């Protein structure tokens, strides 16, 4: 069922948006609109299924050789050894003993070749499923999932970035889906800033002042509705709903035993917050672990960071599995690219997009599997080669979406995923 938006056609924001869109798309349409799917599967239905997605963004480029595709004993293998996992035949780096124990939940995609060694472009490709071009801007996976899966009435925002530091800002990842699907940034294991009613304002007074705000906003919206004003209104209402769920963002009350299970690290706290948010109905989370851009002393830095990830990630997967949430939650571990098999003169590894690994778990994907293969020293994919676009299709299919569907952006069909690519059917269940 198509839904159209009734923005005022002459507002400056809308005019600009239309011009931008016409300019980049070369055809009619509205950017930032309330687009719906063009065919049958309604987002409401998907929302009721409570599918969730969590992306671990290993910022800077996690080394596949020091994580999920080790090559010990070769000229590129580095000093770390491989260890057995809970799945016979699948070995991972010794830096991840805890992850090895939850391998039966994981699906390794070891044949990723994205042919892009630039940080910005690689990140764009991995998060949007498209190659960056000046002709179009595409929404990131978080915005797509928020639009497709999130219940609009959910007090927890549909698209959340969890960072180690402070939060409160909104990102700008939604492109034509509109700013309401951009991320809310939360951090530090604390509730978002300014989400507590000031103590000198009573509940009654607060209700009254919100009513006044709504009336004023509605008068304005009647004449000048745009994607920006929609997002503005939506943000206010969402913030009010969020205030009722402040405790979902607060891990201070978690038992010390739980905190210990996730590790005494920023990432541990981020993951514990992530689990808490999922339990409270969050739809999409992106947790960033930084920084893996190890041109210098790759092994020392991975020695610091991978065990931290291992600790938190394994606890996270284990908790979702124990709670019965993993079946409905797709977990993805990605980077913008991998790192060179060759070791440079500073004990570093540089950017390498031709043969690396993305890891998935949970909803809709095979368990305890390794798809794709690289050659003995990890320089090339020898079997099951896939790229960012195929992966993006796969993510969508895994949570029950038809990746060949399109968004209806004011009458224009915009494919959710790159129409020239296909999902990795072999790992979809």
């Amino acid at each position: 069922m198509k839904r159209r938006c009734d923005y005022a056609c002459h507002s400056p924001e809308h005019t600009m948006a239309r011009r931008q869109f016409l300019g980049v798309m070369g055809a009619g349409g509205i950017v930032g609109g309330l687009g719906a799917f063009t065919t049958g599967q309604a987002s409401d239905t998907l929302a009721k299924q409570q599918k969730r997605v969590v992306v671990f963004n290993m910022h800077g480029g996690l080394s596949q050789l020091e994580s999920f595709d080790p090559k010990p004993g070769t000229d590129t293998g580095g000093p770390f050894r491989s260890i057995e996992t809970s799945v016979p035949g699948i070995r991972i780096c010794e830096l991840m003993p805890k992850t090895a124990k939850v391998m039966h939940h994981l699906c390794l995609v070891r044949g990723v070749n994205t042919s892009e060694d630039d940080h910005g472009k690689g990140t764009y490709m991995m998060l949007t499923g498209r190659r960056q071009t000046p002709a179009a801007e595409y929404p990131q996976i978080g915005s797509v999932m928020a639009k497709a899966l999130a219940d609009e009435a959910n007090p927890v925002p549909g698209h959340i970035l969890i960072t180690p530091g402070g939060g409160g800002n909104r990102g700008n990842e939604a492109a034509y889906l509109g700013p309401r699907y951009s991320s809310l940034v939360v951090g530090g294991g604390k509730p978002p800033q300014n989400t507590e009613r000031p103590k000198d304002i009573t509940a009654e007074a607060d209700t009254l002042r919100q009513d006044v705000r709504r009336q004023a906003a509605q008068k304005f919206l009647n004449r000048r509705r745009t994607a920006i004003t929609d997002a503005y209104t939506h943000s206010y209402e969402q913030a009010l709903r969020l205030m009722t769920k402040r405790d979902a963002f607060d891990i201070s009350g978690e038992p010390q035993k739980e905190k210990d299970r996730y590790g005494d690290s920023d990432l541990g706290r981020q993951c514990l917050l992530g689990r808490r948010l999922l339990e409270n109905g969050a739809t999409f989370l992106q947790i960033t672990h930084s920084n893996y851009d190890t041109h210098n002393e790759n092994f020392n830095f991975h020695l610091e960071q991978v065990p931290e990830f291992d600790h938190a990630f394994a606890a996270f997967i284990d908790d979702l599995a124990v709670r019965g949430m993993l079946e409905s939650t797709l977990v993805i571990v990605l980077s913008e690219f991998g790192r060179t098999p060759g070791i440079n003169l500073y004990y570093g590894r540089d950017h390498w997009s031709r043969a690396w690994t993305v890891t998935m778990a949970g909803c809709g994907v095979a368990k305890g599997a390794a798809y794709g293969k690289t050659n003995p020293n990890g320089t090339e994919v020898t079997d099951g080669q896939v790229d960012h676009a195929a992966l993006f299709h796969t993510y969508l299919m895994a949570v029950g979406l038809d990746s060949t569907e399109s968004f209806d952006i004011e009458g224009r069909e915009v494919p959710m995923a790159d129409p020239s690519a296909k999902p990795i059917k072999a790992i979809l269940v």
Partner: protein
Amino acid sequence: MFTANYAPPAGFDFKAAHVSAQWPCEKPLICCRIDPKVETVLVGGEWGTPERVKIADGKRTKLEGGHDSWIFDAAWTADATRCVTAGGDGRLVWWDVTSEKPAILHRIDAHNGWIRALSVSPDGKTLASGGNDGFVKLWNLADAKPLISIEASKRNIYRTTFSPDGKLIASGDLIGAVASWNVADGKESARYEGKPLHEFNGGQQVDFGGVRALAYTADGKRLAAGGLHKGTNPLGAVHEPLGLVFETDTKKMIRQWTANNIPGGVFWSFRWLADGTMMGASGGSSGGLLLFHSMDADKEVHRLALPNILRDMDLGTDGLTVATAHHDRHVRITRLAAKKA
């Protein structure tokens, strides 16, 4: 004015230092140790097979079958008939190197994680190992029997060195903690403020630096710790070499050594020379350098640029022969004396 440690050997002149030989090895090198007779160099690198290289002609002997990971350090017995290698597999391997096919005498899983540092006591009886597990362990060098295990740090141990009287073993770790421990009972003897050698980069969320070099003076009155500082871009190899000198009686830092125009460097190894000069090996994006510092100045008094980035350095017991381990698979021999006519 700093006084000399002992009488310099005949011909000693570090300002005339020059590379006298360079010998290729199998893979990029990480460590090198000259045997006490100054006839061979034991090298380890980015593979699991250490090699013994003859200084005179570069003839190589492989020490096979001991390790499953890179070799990070090595040590010799006083008679040069045996050696010990330390690996990223957490293993110490004792070798008999009297024959052309070195034999494994002992192979011990000594640490949980890499072993980065080995030292031999001045009397040649005790071996110290330092590992990523934060432990410094003492071993009987003759028969590989464990003696004492010291929980020296919560972080990775990067370097160890014995005091000249053999009563103390000093350690340095990733976060710049420098301490000395009684060899007799493993108890802490002293702690030095090595924090300038450590940085935490908030943007990149990484600890960086650490004590990469550590050396007592011959009289034991000073302890030098080396590494890096100004790590403005740790992941991009932008950092400068830094050395700290402590008085062992007061524990005070009395000198900081830096270098002129080395935006990419770190001290990997320190050796005090006979005249009281410190020879530091700096490797990084600024290349491989031997830097010579005196106690009278912050900056180096002399430098020797080597043909390739280096990762380790050792000084022979003759006080003249220097070995350096390089990324280009070569071990280079430098003489601290004028070239022979």
